[in-house]
């Protein structure tokens, strides 16, 4: 069991993801942790955010006094529109999502399987879930990155050999950012790319339900 103080904070994970988003990309951010990402995008880097409720070019929350109640994110927080942004209807918004125009979607997850299966819309014991746009976005984005804690609150691994939870989209996840590590989903294996400072590859392996290739592991550089 690793020391909790070595786990990355949500903000640190967000910074790790932000570092991997490339200039010029259009990115969709899921509800929850992924919404922390924009703060960590360097200002010289032009990344546009797509919100599936029809906002292309979503900006940060409004300054006090400038709130527009008709301008929200998919997570229903008040947001702004960047210069050069545009409003679209739900059809065009999901044409963007499914049509391969999202360079990346960063989503939360309950489970990710070694083959890239994503489970994030319903827990097995629930009668139903809230799917929102997750299935469309996960099926359509060029890259799906997952951002989550490495294990459940009970300590069970969320990265596993085969999924046991209801599927959101099959084989779509290419990269996983957790509070312990960055894991890349390759064709035949999971590759441990980097670990948090103070966390060892063995720590990560033992908190993971699938085999990790640790040959090229590095340490995550934190600038926070």
């Amino acid at each position, binding site marked *: 069991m690793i020391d909790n103080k070595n786990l990355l904070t949500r903000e640190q994970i967000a910074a790790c993801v932000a570092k991997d988003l490339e200039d010029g990309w259009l990115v969709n951010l899921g509800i929850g942790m992924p919404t922390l990402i924009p703060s960590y995008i360097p200002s010289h880097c032009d990344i546009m955010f797509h919100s599936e409720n029809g*906002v292309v070019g979503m900006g940060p929350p409004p300054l006090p006094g400038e709130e527009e*109640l008709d301008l929200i994110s998919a997570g229903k927080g008040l947001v702004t529109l960047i210069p050069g942004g545009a*409003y679209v209807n739900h059809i065009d918004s999901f044409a963007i999502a*499914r049509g391969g125009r999202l360079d990346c979607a960063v989503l939360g997850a309950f489970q990710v399987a070694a083959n890239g299966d994503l489970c994030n819309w319903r827990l097995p014991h629930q009668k139903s879930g809230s*799917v929102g746009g997750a299935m469309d976005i996960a099926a359509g984005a060029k890259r799906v990155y997952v951002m989550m804690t490495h294990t459940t609150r009970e300590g069970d691994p969320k990265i596993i050999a085969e999924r046991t939870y*209801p599927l959101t989209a099959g084989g779509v996840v290419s990269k996983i950012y957790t509070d312990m590590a960055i894991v890349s989903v390759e064709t035949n294996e999971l590759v441990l790319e980097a670990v948090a400072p103070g966390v060892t590859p063995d720590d990560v392996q033992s908190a993971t339900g699938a085999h990790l290739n640790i040959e090229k592991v590095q340490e995550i550089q934190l600038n926070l």
Partner: protein
Amino acid sequence: MKNKRAESLEDAVNIVVDGATVLIGGFGPPGVPEILIDGVCDNKIKDLTIVTNNAGTDRSGVARLMDEGCVSKLVCTFPWAKESFIFKELYDAGKLQLEIVPQGTLAERMRTAGAGLGGFLTPTAVGTDLAEGKQIHKVDGKDYVLELPLRGDVALIKAHKADKRGNLIFNKSARNFNPIMAMAADQTVVEVSEEVQIHELDPEVIITPSVFVDTYFVTGHYEVGKGSKQV
């Protein structure tokens, strides 16, 4: 020119009758026709099937509609949210049927109905519970789910402005499902914050042409999420 303006809320919503399938615009609070919904509540309509993205926010809009017992089935994408506590109460008590549809598929199923098409193939939900019982087609080696049109008897939508012919424009992210639903029902009823003269809407910027609008009701501007007289 046909006068599509309803002079009273009652006139605007009396097309909504017991047992109808009603498409209701909005994503979160923006774009929800809260006043029209109040009118349906006032008419004590029963057994509605409501198609809308969320399961209501707090106590106004779709939440009020459910709370007042008007709804027997909800077709939506994201029912489990803190602000949808009225839905949860009713669902847990077995008083509400629920059908979950992925958001892009929900929009596309309505557009398909509005565009006179018979269905579409989507990669969304392949291999998931939400594709259960649906046909799978392979195109170019990739699997797609066949999804069918979803049509409403009535669409209740919200727009920013209508001109006197019924052309519509929307406000920011309150656009969302509204223009799609306007195409997808036998009767489309719009609440608009403002009515303008015909020449005041540039034909290049009209989002919903008048041909998709049957009735509009001018509500004036009110604070989003506060439409319900119950609040």
